[in-house]
């Protein structure tokens, strides 16, 4: 069959291509590992208890922490989730299970488009919509900006995971006299739950690191912000400000901030995966 390729020739090509693909894979992983290692090396060294409990100190002074930025990031993510997750989730359920025809096509397309909008543009949008009329930066505006970013991702991931549920389950529910809505709520959504929750976690992880839309919405704050109405510190913005400053001490704190951000995302992901690794998840394949 393969007269023009003697076995030796084949083996050489095989080994060569295999090494090439392996090398590419190694390259990808090593870049990631390098970033991670660098972050852990610099970040973990600069971490101490004060980092989590104290406010930032003026430049030149030793010590201080990012307690307000950690809490601020949490607040912003909370508000963003309250906006993005319900809208994305319900919209995704509609698209996958009930929507038909040109309307859902238009919604899907719009969501993909919105997903591709640069985050700074969403920042300007919220700045014009909320910050300008109110004449001040606020945590509220920052949360809204992140929430808008979450909507299309939550929508599309929910949509995709629901549509991946085999149709036999839908028919199985209907065949027992369940209504369409009952089938969706009691069978289809639980079947897709693992994917949906993972999608939302990845979504959270993505917006947790967003800086651009916060620069001119939540702005930043050296102190605690009370409520939602004032400028609010957040980890990414503080990291940005500290990293571009000329002070050695601030650089170290920026590394620590990056490390904490990453660790937070990492831990949330693991918790989510453990929580939803249900016993009844369908076998893959």
């Amino acid at each position, binding site marked *: 069959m393969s007269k023009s390729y003697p076995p030796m020739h084949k083996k050489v090509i095989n080994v060569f291509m295999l090494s090439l693909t392996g090398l590419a894979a190694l390259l990808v992983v090593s870049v990631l590992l390098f970033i991670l290692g660098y972050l852990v090396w610099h970040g973990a060294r600069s971490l101490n208890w004060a980092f989590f409990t104290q406010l930032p100190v003026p430049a030149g002074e030793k010590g201080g922490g990012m307690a307000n930025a950690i809490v601020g990031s949490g607040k912003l993510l909370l508000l963003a989730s309250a906006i993005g997750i319900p809208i994305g989730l319900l919209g995704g359920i509609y698209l996958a299970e009930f929507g*038909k025809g040109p309307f859902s096509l238009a919604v899907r397309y719009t969501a993909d488009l919105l997903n591709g909008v640069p985050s700074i543009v969403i920042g300007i949008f919220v700045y014009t919509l909320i910050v300008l009329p109110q004449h001040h930066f606020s945590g509220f505006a920052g949360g809204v900006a992140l929430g808008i970013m979450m909507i299309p991702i939550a929508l599309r991931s929910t949509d995709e995971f629901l549509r991946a549920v*085999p149709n*036999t*389950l*839908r*028919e*199985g*529910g*209907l*065949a*027992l*006299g*369940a*209504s369409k809505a*009952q089938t969706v709520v*009691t*069978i289809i959504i*639980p*079947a897709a739950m693992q994917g949906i929750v993972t999608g939302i976690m990845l979504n959270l992880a993505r917006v947790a690191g967003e800086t651009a839309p916060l620069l001119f919405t939540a702005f930043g704050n050296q102190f605690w912000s009370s409520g939602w109405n004032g400028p609010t510190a957040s980890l990414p913005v503080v990291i940005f400000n500290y990293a571009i400053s000329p002070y050695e001490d601030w650089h170290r704190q920026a590394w620590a901030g990056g490390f904490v951000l990453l660790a937070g995302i990492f831990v949330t992901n693991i918790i989510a995966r453990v929580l939803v690794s*249900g*016993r*009844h*998840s*369908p*076998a893959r394949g």
Partner: protein
Amino acid sequence: MATPPALFDLKKLHHARRARFGDPEPAETEPLRAQFTVADMNFFYGGFQALHDVNMVLPEKRVTGLIGPSGCGKSTFLRTLNRMYETVPKTRVTGTIRFGESDLLEFSPTLLRRRVGMVFQKPSPFPKSIFDNIAYGLRVNNLCRNRDLKGKVEECLRRAALWEEVRDKLNESAFSLSGGQQQRLCIARALAVDPDVLLLDEPCSALDPIATAKIEDLIFDLRRSCTIIIVTHNMLQAARISDYVGFFLQGKLIEFDAARKMFQFPSNKLTEDYITGRFG
């Protein structure tokens, strides 16, 4: 005209059937009642006509096998009987189907599907525990008080001859069962809502011979308490378990008759060709 040769040795088949099921065929004493009466039925997928002028009466509390080559419309026909086709966009039915005495369209789809259960080709257990799979139909239809649920689930599993195999692991995932067990679970699940009819869409095509034999035994046990309509690719299976057989070809019902007559002396040349394996 000479008598056509018998296509199957039915005597042998029935002997084997009796040996296996240990239950002699009951004599047909009372006249059969109609479960479904189909008149001038046509079915369309958009512009494509999948079924042409189907007329047939499906008898109550009997096993009816539907045979025919792939794409002949037998599964489509099955899906008109519980209006499952309505979940597919751009489908249309003309003509009438009566369920018992009333028109099929007079029922709400949910009520109809409760009374006309369906089991699919691929075992499709829900991603829930074995217990919750059986209890599902009872719960969504509010058919059972909570304290009676346990007894009812056991009853259904016993009817589906699955109880002994799963009694100690009711809370385990339905996916922990084998393919054949999953399919019997789906039958038990369908039985839980006490349907008048069970539609089986090639229930054994994904199963090995032993699991298939168990499903056939089960159908045999249910045959006088429930109307069973089964689509099958397996001619011998149709001959083994059916009381009546319908043969579909290219969207048309070619022949419908008692199984023992149809397999021995088919009245249509096309049926004979199909049964003897000349095409399909």
